[in-house]
């Protein structure tokens, strides 16, 4: 058996054949054979994080900024349980990840061995699929299937648990093209591609008087070409378009048809247009509760078209009239060709009236904030960051909270894959490791994590990673000493009782940066802001910019939980009626 290699070697060989360039990981007892093999090769780079949770978010950031699959390597027990949050995050936001975990040797499984846990059991609901590989000869086929499943259809995380004895055992390697994956294990679009549904949808759009496109993260997952086609189609129709948090960048925010983001902290005009439209074209979005608001008042008079690759999203929360199951790129390509073929043209008179109405809503200027004084408003900080970085190739990541919403509102994205944020799960601590992953994938780009003072502390240990690999990631902290979004909800819904939402004893972020041999900067007033941002951009090192912002600023506009799209709060003064506020309080 001279063709036999060890399980650990099969792991590395499979990764190499899958085109993996970088692995984010943390060693430990149950993965030592793989780390030993890693040591003996040069083709795959390993990025050592400081906690496994950082590894998986870094892999997510890498995957979402490059379009490739992110790879994670961690040990058994605590190594595996520490990646559970990231796996769930990747599951919710459809990020392709392959996570390799070590496991105790097979004869110890079930004996409560040191660092043993039921990894496949724990991760079953938070992965697209997972494996416990007991036979070294199946290892390569499992890897090739895992990569395919992670990327196929609606992408997601796949976990491979490998007992240590399997890593040591010898077996044969099978190449990618020798593996046949049964079709039922993959998403395969129906062959006729729902042609009649596409015809029906295009016909419906052509007859619309008040259309709106509602664009989600599925357009980004479908690849850059999908964004181009979506833009082309919207241009042909001349319809307004709004994007979800996950869909920002699919259509340029500078595009004349763009109304910006919709939903809980979305634009007034976008939400009003969703409420009053007569035809809604949902492309790659899933009617998330942050987007829909109260369901019984969600876009009550519209016909709804829903394009999604995951059939379970159809009629899950909102019933639609024309469902199309498929990949955005392929579906929209077909829609454009049907539109052109049948020489459709939308009624310009009614479309103009629709735009007039929308332009009236725009005049409300929903993002308006009081910018008086020398104190830095968080909105202003993001605006300045945008102005000073817009001509550079910039990736923005965020943590979760007020700063995330301000980033979504005030940073303007003109391209897909430049905006990385935890949408579905809302994971504080996502942004910094994700920025590390994005920087690894794009060494020459500017990568900024717009963070809050609370979120950044959730994965601050990754400073050490960033500095070790000379990753010039910028952390831009909007520091208000509060968990701002928690504080905002407490103000609006809990009588201003700020229970545990103030962070006492925050570190001195400048000194913190310096202790990691990174650069720390601080801006306390508007006069200092531009200089700090410029210096941050020009520094060829990891930077923490600590931006002191006004402490009790709220993020508006806002649809409070339990309210509808046409019941937006534009400011604090516009209090919601008591009854619906009480009703909304029990919701998340």
């Amino acid at each position, binding site marked *: 058996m001279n063709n036999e290699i060890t399980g650990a070697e099969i792991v590395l060989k499979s990764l190499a054949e899958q085109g993996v360039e970088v692995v984010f990981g943390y060693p430990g007892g149950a993965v030592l054979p793989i780390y030993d093999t890693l040591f003996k090769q040069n083709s795959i780079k390993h990025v050592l994080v400081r906690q496994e949770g950082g590894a998986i978010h870094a892999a997510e950031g890498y995957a979402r900024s490059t379009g490739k699959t992110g790879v994670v390597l961690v040990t058994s027990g605590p190594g595996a349980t520490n990646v559970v949050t990231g796996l769930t995050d990747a599951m919710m936001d459809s990020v392709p990840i392959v996570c390799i975990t070590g496991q105790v040797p097979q004869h110890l499984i079930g004996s409560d061995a040191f660092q043993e846990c039921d990894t*496949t*059991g724990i991760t*079953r*609901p938070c992965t*697209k*699929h*997972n494996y*416990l590989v007991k036979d070294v000869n199946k290892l390569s086929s499992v890897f090739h299937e895992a990569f395919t*499943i992670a990327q196929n259809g609606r992408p997601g995380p796949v976990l491979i648990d490998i007992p240590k004895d399997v890593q040591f055992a010898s077996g044969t390697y099978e190449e990618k093209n020798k593996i046949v994956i*049964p079709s*039922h*294990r993959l998403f395969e679009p129906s062959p006729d591609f729902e042609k009649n549904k596409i015809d029906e949808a295009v016909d419906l759009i052509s007859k619309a008087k008040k259309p709106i496109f509602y664009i989600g993260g599925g357009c980004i997952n479908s690849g850059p070409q999908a964004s181009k086609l979506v833009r082309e189609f919207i241009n042909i129709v001349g319809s307004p378009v709004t994007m979800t948090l996950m869909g920002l960048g699919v259509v340029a925010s500078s595009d004349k048809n763009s109304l910006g983001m919709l939903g809980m902290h979305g634009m007034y005009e976008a939400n009003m247009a969703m409420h009053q439209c007569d035809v809604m074209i949902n492309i790659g979005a899933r009617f998330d*509760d942050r987007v*829909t*608001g*109260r*369901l*019984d*008042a*969600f876009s009550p008079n519209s016909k709804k078209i829903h394009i999604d690759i*995951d*059939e*379970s999203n*159809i*009629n*899950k*929360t909102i*019933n639609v009239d024309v469902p199309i199951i498929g990949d955005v790129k392929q579906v929209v390509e077909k829609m454009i060709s049907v539109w052109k073929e049948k020489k459709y043209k939308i009624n310009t008179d009614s479309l103009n009236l629709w735009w007039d109405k929308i332009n009236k809503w725009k005049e409300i200027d929903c993002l308006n904030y009081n910018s008086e004084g020398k104190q830095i408003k968080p909105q202003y900080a993001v605006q300045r960051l945008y102005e000073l970085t817009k001509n550079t190739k910039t990736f923005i990541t965020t943590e979760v909270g007020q700063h995330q919403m301000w980033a979504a509102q005030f940073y303007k994205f003109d391209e897909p894959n430049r905006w990385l944020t935890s949408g579905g799960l809302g994971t504080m601590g996502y942004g910094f490791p994700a920025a590390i992953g994005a920087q690894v994938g794009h060494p020459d780009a500017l990568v900024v994590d717009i963070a809050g003072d609370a979120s950044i502390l959730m994965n601050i240990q990754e400073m050490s990673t960033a500095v070790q690999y000379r990753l010039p990631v910028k952390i831009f902290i909007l520091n208000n000493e509060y968990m701002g979004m928690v504080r905002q909800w407490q103000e609006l819904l809990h009588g201003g009782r700020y229970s545990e939402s103030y962070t006492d004893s925050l570190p001195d972020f400048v000194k913190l940066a310096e202790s990691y041999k990174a650069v720390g900067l601080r801006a306390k007033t508007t006069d200092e802001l531009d200089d700090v941002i410029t210096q941050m951009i020009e520094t060829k090192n990891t930077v923490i910019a600590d931006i002191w912002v006004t402490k009790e600023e709220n993020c508006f506009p806002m649809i409070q*939980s*339990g309210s509808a799209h046409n019941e937006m709060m534009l400011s604090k003064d516009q209090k919601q009626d008591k009854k619906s506020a009480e009703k909304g309080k029990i*919701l*998340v």
Partner: protein
Amino acid sequence: MNKSVYDSPDQVSEIKRHILTVLVDNEPGVLARVIGMFSGRGYNIDSLNVAEVSNDENISRITIVTHGTSEVVSQIEKQLLRIVPVHSVTNLDQEGSSVEAEVALVYIYISDTNKKKVYQLCDLYRARKIENENNTTIFEIAGASERVNRFIKEINEITKVEIVRSGPVAISSIQKNEEE
């Protein structure tokens, strides 16, 4: 409508019993994936039955009885199809014509006073006595759940019993093209 953070807007359709047949690859963890989907998403399992049905292809057939509105059950079907080792999901109620059966084993506490009645009832329901080494009275009854229910109700009125039921299995009775 299905569950969401917000109340359902549309009127809810009638809650009905559904029998789902799920064909799966017979691999470790597959049952946990299926039942984990039900518990994780808050759906009901009234009964569950799993067995390998083909020796060569390694495929198992899971029969699940659940109840819910047609919207909920349709969502259950779609969520099941997302599970990688699932081949197919068939809602036998939707198909309209199917045959179902289950087996129950009934340990009957018997005495001289009730013996005659018990045997008469078992005879009526064509329950079969299972001989065993301890010579206790154990009957086997097979058939549609309804019939088993009635039998159990009636025998309970006569004497104390201990029951184990397999839960129904079901198969479509629609004419198929007999290729194989």
